[in-house]
């Protein structure tokens, strides 16, 4: 385990302002990411994981209620930077994002090579020919043939487009890439291919990843560490091996048990009820009303308990 | 119902929408009032006009409320009659009537009293005599009494059954008044150098004699002021309030029917084209493209000139030409998307017919888009009707705003300074356009959330 961390997030808060009150999408999140490491943020829809991605990259909409905390990237607190400084120094320079359904967010009127080259030209003032060379290199990394540089987005399949989106996030050689549901719309073979690409990039280019997904099975393809998110909070954080063998938090356990497995005979069990609204989350442990192991103390919000290098937000581990 | 409530609440959040809606409701109420107070046949009759209907009005008089804005008080029309009107709405002030019988016939004295407080002279002075007799004409002597006690002899004459006496055209009277026109001479202050009317109570006494039993004399005194009524009058003495009031329901009805008719037809045709695809779709697209190129106004002008100016015909052609417009392409784009929805596929899977899918599944998706478009489209049609009327192609019998402007322009309103004649209908047109636009754009923001925050 590396001692120096690439990314340290402390008490990150992001609330949205709505007519009905603040939506507490990211509610005091803490986590750490080392170099050449991939952390998976696991969670279902509505737990705030996409908002977490946006909070880390400061891609905020206009209706913000609160945005605070510390995002320390390689020793520098990026929250202290102004928006313009952030744009020039951090976003797509040291951290980039492959957003959800990225393959649909490619510009239909530009050639894909030009799109991948664009961040280089904008952030590093590089000339077009040089930027295209860099784009070509990126295409190699992600497994897209070089002659695709001159094609348009609609000429490519879904899997190819997703690879182009990954190339676009790679081109400025960032230290960290956040991927939001990179394969949820793709077929299983294409999915496996993309993960092969990501594994190779992690090793060869020494880039760290934050992978946000709800798909537990595919998350195990990349994860060095796992952070489970529920109702705006990280409720468990652990290294992957231990997590997949033995999840600690009751929610993590139920989540693990609800996955149908191809190889294995266990009948999956589903979780009753629904996650709480982020508008008015309950006081106390937010999972309590669905938890089979709840007891008296769960009326108070549990702190985060550390067990060796795992942490759980659950009274059972006091 | 709940949706309507919700929409109203949403509307309340936009001040412009509230203003627009208020104006529209106000206009609709006034329009309904106009239709009740002056029923349609009556309105047509009044608008057709003629001396018989409008004789009491001055020509080209400005609205009475001008006096609020001017230093000098301009004269307003005064009507005094010696008889009662059947229709109490048209009742004027009453003159005193005194009948003294004699051996044969009688002496009839009619006294007309009025206040004159204006700074300027009237436009015209007229007596409309009415008498009943067998053979012998009655005889009248008319005397004028000013507030400072002077008596002026106006005229002595015999009158027929219907006799009109115009003060200003009586040359003998003019001579008696030393060549000064009676409208000035009868009112002028004798002590003033410049002609200034003397203010106070004036009295006119008619001493009449009838020579038969059962004969009678009645007279109506009309003083044409320079101002008249709520909205002034036009060259045919018609009170413009009739046209302005009745213009409201006509404009609104035309606009609404045209907009609604076009909207529904366009929506349905777009849906049918998209659903059936193939040659149906192609045909509709080609018709639309051809129609977009056709000169809309020119065609309507030709229709009006060569075929008929009836408002129903014009309305019909307007709708027909407006159906195949750019809106079809917009709706088509949306329907193409909606057609691929899974719920439509499901409907085919459980056996829904084409007609059912079009009307129950496709069209309801577009109604939120349609409604703002409908509202915004209404002023366009209102202006169209006014424009056609202005060009002289309006419906020949209906009192519309466009017709008023047309009359005004034709009779040199601007040249003569009768600004009210044009400004009033134009202002009403603009108000209508403004109100519907404000409401329509707010509705657009409500129904299309992507535009919110603008």
């Amino acid at each position, binding site marked *: 385990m590396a001692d120096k961390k690439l990314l340290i997030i402390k008490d990150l808060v992001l609330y949205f302002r709505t007519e009905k009150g603040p939506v507490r999408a990211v509610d005091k999140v803490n986590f750490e990411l080392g170099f050449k490491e991939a952390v998976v943020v696991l969670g279902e*829809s509505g737990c705030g994981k996409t908002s977490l991605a946006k909070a880390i990259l400061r891609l905020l909409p206009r209706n913000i209620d609160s945005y605070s905390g510390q995002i320390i990237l390689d020793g520098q607190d990026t929250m202290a930077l102004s928006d313009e400084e952030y744009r020039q120094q951090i976003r797509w320079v040291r951290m980039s994002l492959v957003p959800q359904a990225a393959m649909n967010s490619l510009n239909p009127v530009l050639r894909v090579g030009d799109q991948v080259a664009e961040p280089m030209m904008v952030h590093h003032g590089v000339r077009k020919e040089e930027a295209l060379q860099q784009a070509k290199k990126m295409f190699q990394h992600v497994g897209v043939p070089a002659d695709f540089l001159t094609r348009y987005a609609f000429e490519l399949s879904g899997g190819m487009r997703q690879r182009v989106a990954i190339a676009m996030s790679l081109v400025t050689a960032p230290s960290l890439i956040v991927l939001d549901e990179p394969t949820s719309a793709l077929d299983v073979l294409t999915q*496996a291919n993309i993960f092969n690409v990501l594994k190779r990039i992690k090793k060869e280019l020494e880039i760290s990843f934050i992978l946000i997904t709800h798909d537990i099975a595919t998350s195990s393809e990349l994860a060095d560490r796992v952070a489970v998110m529920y109702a705006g909070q990280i409720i468990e954080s652990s290294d992957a091996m231990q997590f997949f063998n033995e999840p600690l938090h009751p929610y993590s356990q139920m989540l693990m048990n609800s*996955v149908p497995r191809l*190889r294995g005979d266990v009948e999956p069990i589903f979780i009753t009820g629904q996650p709480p609204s982020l508008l008015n989350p309950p006081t106390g442990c937010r999972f309590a009303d669905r938890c089979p192991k709840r007891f008296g103390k769960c009326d108070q919000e549990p702190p985060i308990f550390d067990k060796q290098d795992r942490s759980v937000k659950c009274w059972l581990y006091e | 119902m709940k949706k309507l409530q919700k929409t109203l609440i949403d509307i309340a959040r936009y001040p412009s929408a509230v203003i627009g809606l208020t104006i529209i409701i106000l206009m609709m109420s006034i329009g309904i009032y106009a239709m009740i107070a002056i029923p349609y046949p009556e309105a047509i009759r009044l608008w057709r006009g003629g001396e018989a209907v409008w004789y009491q009005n001055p020509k080209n008089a400005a609205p009475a409320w001008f006096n609020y804005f001017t230093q000098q008080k301009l004269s307003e029309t005064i009507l005094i009659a010696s008889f009662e009107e059947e229709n109490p709405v048209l009742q004027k002030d009453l003159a005193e009537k005194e009948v003294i019988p004699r051996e044969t016939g009688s002496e009839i004295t009619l006294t007309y009293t009025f206040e004159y407080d204006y700074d300027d002279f009237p436009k015209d002075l007229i007596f409309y005599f009415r008498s009943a007799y067998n053979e012998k004409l009655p005889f009248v002597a008319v005397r004028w009494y000013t507030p400072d006690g002077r008596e002026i002899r106006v005229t002595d004459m015999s009158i027929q059954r219907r006799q009109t006496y115009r003060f200003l055209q009586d040359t003998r009277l003019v001579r008696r008044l030393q060549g000064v026109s009676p409208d000035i001479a009868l009112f002028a202050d004798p002590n003033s150098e410049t002609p200034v009317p003397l203010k106070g109570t004036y009295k006119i006494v008619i001493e009449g004699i009838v020579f038969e039993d059962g004969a009678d004399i009645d007279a109506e005194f009309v003083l044409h002021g320079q101002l008249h009524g709520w909205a002034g009058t036009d060259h045919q003495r018609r009170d413009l309030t009739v046209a302005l009031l009745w213009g409201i329901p006509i404009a609104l009805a035309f606009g609404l029917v045209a907009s609604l008719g076009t909207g529904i037809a366009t929506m349905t045709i777009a849906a049918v084209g998209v659903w059936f695809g193939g040659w149906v779709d192609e045909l509709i697209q080609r018709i639309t493209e051809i129609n977009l190129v056709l000169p809309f106004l020119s065609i309507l002008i030709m229709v009006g000139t060569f075929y008929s100016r009836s408002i129903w015909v014009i309305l019909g052609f307007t709708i027909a030409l407006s159906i195949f417009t750019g809106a079809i392409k917009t709706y088509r784009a949306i329907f193409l998307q909606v057609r691929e929805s899974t*719920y439509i596929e499901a409907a085919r899977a459980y056996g*829904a017919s084409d007609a059912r899918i079009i009307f129950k599944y496709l069209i309801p998706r577009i109604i939120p888009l349609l409604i703002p478009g409908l509202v915004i489209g209404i002023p366009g049609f209102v202006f169209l009707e006014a424009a056609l009327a202005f060009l002289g192609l309006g419906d020949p019998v209906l009192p519309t705003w466009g017709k008023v402007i047309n009359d005004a322009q034709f009779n040199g309103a601007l040249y003569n300074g009768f600004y009210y004649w044009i400004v009033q209908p134009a202002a009403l047109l603009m108000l209508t356009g403004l109100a519907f636009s404000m409401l329509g754009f707010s509705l657009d923001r409500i129904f299309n959330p992507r535009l919110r925050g603008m």
Partner: protein
Amino acid sequence: MALNVPLTNEAPAAQAGDTLLSVEDLHVWFELKKFGFGHAGYVRAVDGVSFDLKYGESTAVVGESGCGKSSLMKTILGINIPTKGDIVFQGRHMSKMNRSDLKWYRSQVGYVQQDPYGALAPFMTVESILEEPLIINGVRSKSERRERIQKVMEEVKMTPADDFLHKFPHMLSGGQQQRIVIARAMILGPKLLVADEPVSMLDASVRVEILRLLRNLQEQHNLAVIYITHDLSTVRYFSERIFVMYAGKLVERSRIEPLVRNPLHPYTQALLEATSDPDANNALIYRELPPGEPPSLVNPPSGCRFHPRCSQAIQGLCEVEVPPEFEPAPERMAACWLYK
């Protein structure tokens, strides 16, 4: 206890074990229109598919996007018309059906869609949505419709039904929406259910719920189910047999357990290899996958359509001749020259 809509021409009653559906050499080709007249070729979405399905039997159809499974599904649902070949349902040939027969046929096949939100008309209440199939298929009396709606809501465990009937789809959760979709598919008392990726757009914890519901419904009503998916891990849970489809053809047919233990066709092997179970060791290995992409259905490769990507292709055979269906073991079919 299936609710049967009164039929104009009822087929003879059948028992479990009889064949319900028979797909015979089905071809579904779409014309690619060229500008003007003529055409630029055909999209051969389904290119010679045959299989049988018994009453109460459930099978999964697995394949990637672009393999033609959607077109196959839509033809079975009665939305597409076969170009060649036939579908026989309860002994009646689709090619010979007239318009009212087709309407009857559609009422016998229920459709559960992938996207629960898109599958429900957003401007209609749950009650109206459920009434539509009944109205269209001639259930005139309002009280009878209401009764059937109540029954079907109970079956999908959305009770008390009155709580939900007046709601609009956007007021329901994803899982609830999918239950309504299933209710709508069941309301006409079909014998066959076609489920197209019914859980892929739902959260992980809800998927199991819905799959279990489908399985219960299948058992209770002796429903035959065709379950279309590209996620192999759910297939075991729910079906007895599995068909693997590639580029418009069926490349393998088998019962599930044997296939998972021992996949025959190289493509099936690739699919299994690419499907992960949650296991931290996955992060340490690269998966071996066939290169390239699924072929275009307009100009498929000659011979075996998988041959350009197959690591086990036999030179001189696989790219020349289309492999027929071999049966190397009982109840296991593979269309691959390896099993000659």
